[in-house]
């Protein structure tokens, strides 16, 4: 349209076109839109490619089989992440805490065992804990279906300042027996010890 455009004006037009196009545009299409011969277009694009490598540019011009496209420089991904990604918020809810304690003290443990203790399906809690990196698969149980055995991660142990699972106070079978006895006793007394029992568990419920 203009009589004699400067190369700068052509470069600007190419930038505008590629910016708005989003995807890649064939060099031939650019040449015809800008009324340039293909060779000239190619030369300009090559020169532009170099200019985009300058320090103060955040985008770069890339060629993909005779098509050209603008894209974000990978160097700036980190900053971009900080803008587009909402920081995740993780909380150990009561459910997660409960499940985590089971894995911690009974590891290696299958999901079925966890569910048996908790009395409810625990897929969600187990998945979340795995996602959070608190527990992980530590093997498979040699049983039908070869269920996954879960254990706590090293990161988890480290954050408590302990180096191995051995250091966790184990809930031994005897302890479980104790609990059963305790429970039976209470049943016998029907509500006599209720007040004490009622207090203990409540304390943790607000930890979520």
């Amino acid at each position, binding site marked *: 349209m203009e009589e004699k455009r400067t190369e700068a004006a052509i470069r600007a037009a190419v930038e505008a076109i590629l*910016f*708005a196009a*989003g995807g890649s545009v064939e060099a031939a299409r650019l040449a015809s839109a800008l009324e340039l011969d293909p060779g000239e277009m190619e030369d300009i694009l090559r020169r532009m490619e170099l200019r985009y490598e300058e320090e103060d540019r955040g985008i770069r011009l890339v060629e993909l089989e005779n098509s050209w496209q603008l*894209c*974000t420089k*990978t160097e700036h*991904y980190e900053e*971009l*992440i900080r803008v*587009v*990604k909402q*920081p*995740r918020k*993780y909380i*150990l*809810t*009561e*459910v997660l*805490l409960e499940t985590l*304690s*089971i894995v*911690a*003290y009974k590891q290696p443990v299958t999901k079925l065992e966890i569910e048996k*203790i*908790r*009395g*409810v399906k625990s897929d*969600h809690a187990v998945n979340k804990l795995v*996602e*959070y*990196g*608190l527990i992980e698969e530590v093997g498979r149980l040699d049983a039908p279906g070869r269920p996954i055995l879960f254990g706590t991660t090293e*990161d*988890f142990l480290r*954050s408590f300042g*302990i180096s191995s699972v051995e250091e*966790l*106070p184990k*809930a031994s079978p005897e*302890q*479980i027996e104790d*609990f*059963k006895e*305790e*429970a039976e006793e*209470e*049943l016998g007394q029907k*509500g006599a010890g*209720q*007040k004490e*029992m*009622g*207090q*203990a*568990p*409540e304390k*943790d*419920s607000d*930890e*979520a």
Partner: protein
Amino acid sequence: MGIPVKLPAFEGPLDLLLHLIESNKIDIYDIPIVTITDQYMEYIQAMEKKDLNIMSEFLVMAATLLEIKAKMLLPAEVNEEGEEIDPRADLVERLLEYKLYKFMAAQLKARRNQAGQSFYREADIPKEVASYIEPVDMEKLIGDLTLAKLDAVFRDVLRRSVDKIDPVRSGFGEIEMEEVSLEDRISYVEETLKKEPRTSFRKLLEGKKRRGKMQVIVTFLAVLELMKTGKLTVKQEETFGEIYIEWEKTPAGEGNDKAVPAAGAGETEEQGA
């Protein structure tokens, strides 16, 4: 002036008035109210009366015009400064303001045409960025959780687990009918929430030796019932997540409290816990 056979449509009475003023080449500050009113009336009489809503707006203006016309015949009122009040003044102000916005609309239109020549971009987040998952900050996640606390949680889990198993075992052969009344549970939930306005469903079940299924179900029904009457709100952030219950302090709640005596049967003893 005759009304054209094919009536132009106007946005509203002000638009029509402006049109009449302009096509009559009238000074807007000195509107010959009789002429304009006549033309205006002629126009609305010729208008298709299909839309009453539109018609009514034109009629309101007609009334205004007639009122001005009448006032023009009377001796002019004067304001505090002794100046005569032109009965047309308000109308003129309105017409000018309306015209101003019409003018601004035209300016906006021009700007839009200009701005339409700029192109924006769709968001194009690189795959690596989109799929990036923030690493877990273990320290933050663990927070103030200690081994002692974890241990306590575990003991509590075990205890409840045993509690759950035993009644079943001991119940073999002699299946007990568990009497749980909804009314009692409602009053229990109310009492608990009054002491602790924010709690969880789980906590409502705590302190109960025997968390029979019926107990859970009836407590849940009690919560639903109280939710329905607006006494509490319930929040669950994710599927299978904790159900949080919050007491709504409404004056209505107090009257109801009296209706349900606090010292009921069975379950109410937990209130002391």
